């Protein structure tokens, strides 16, 4: 499944559309501790988190995540939103808990 496919699925609200939406999502990844995400987030992952500060965006860029899904109704703060637009990172949102959001992505990836 591509990032565009996930954007079009209607499962999540669209917060920001970044570069290369045709990119393939490799796996859903759940983590709120940036220190761990930095070392473990797989390249091309759809990263589900409640952590919405500017460092989340930096970690997503540097680990080469495909997109970010803000779960539990969490939102990006103002600086993070600006960074998402500047760095062209795709961000989506949902009221769902982290597990449920990641499960939905997993199921969508199974077709």
């Amino acid at each position: 499944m591509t990032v565009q496919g996930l954007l079009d699925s209607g499962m999540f609200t669209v917060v920001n559309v970044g570069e290369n939406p045709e990119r393939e999502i490799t796996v859903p990844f759940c983590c709120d501790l940036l220190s761990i995400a930095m070392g473990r987030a797989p390249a091309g992952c759809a990263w589900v988190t409640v952590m919405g500060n500017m460092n989340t965006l930096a970690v997503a860029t540097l680990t080469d995540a495909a997109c970010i899904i803000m779960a539990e109704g969490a939102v990006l703060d103002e600086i993070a939103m600006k960074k998402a637009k500047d760095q062209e990172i795709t961000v989506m949102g949902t009221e769902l808990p982290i597990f449920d959001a990641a499960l939905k992505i997993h199921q969508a990836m199974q077709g």
Partner: protein
Amino acid sequence: MDEAIVLTYEISPDDFTRAGEASSDVKGKLKQLGVSPEAIRKVAIAMYEGEINMVIHANGGGIRVEITPVEIKMILADVGPGIPDVEQAMKAGYSTAPDEVRSLGFGAGMGLPNMKKYTDDMTIETQLGVGTTITMTVKM
């Protein structure tokens, strides 16, 4: 690319809004140079962890990146307090980061271990009260 391409950065202390700018810049330059995505990812992760460490612990510092056809070398030098026990600092989960840093999602004691994990070679030279220089190499 016969000679080394050298990039230098100054890291501001206590400025989390700018942490990651240097790593992002290097990432962009490596992409332009056609370096493999895997090597870029390793460099980006290791350098960002180093940048964060400099912001948290060392009143900022300087980073020099040398790119050659065979490797990417990152030299991170600060004039911070030094690391009292390097072996302990290298242990995953050991951290001296303040609460403010932890509330941002960092400070879990994974910085140095992540830097080691994502580089092919890493050396730490540190002296208490003088500073720390970390040299990391990622092979192309």
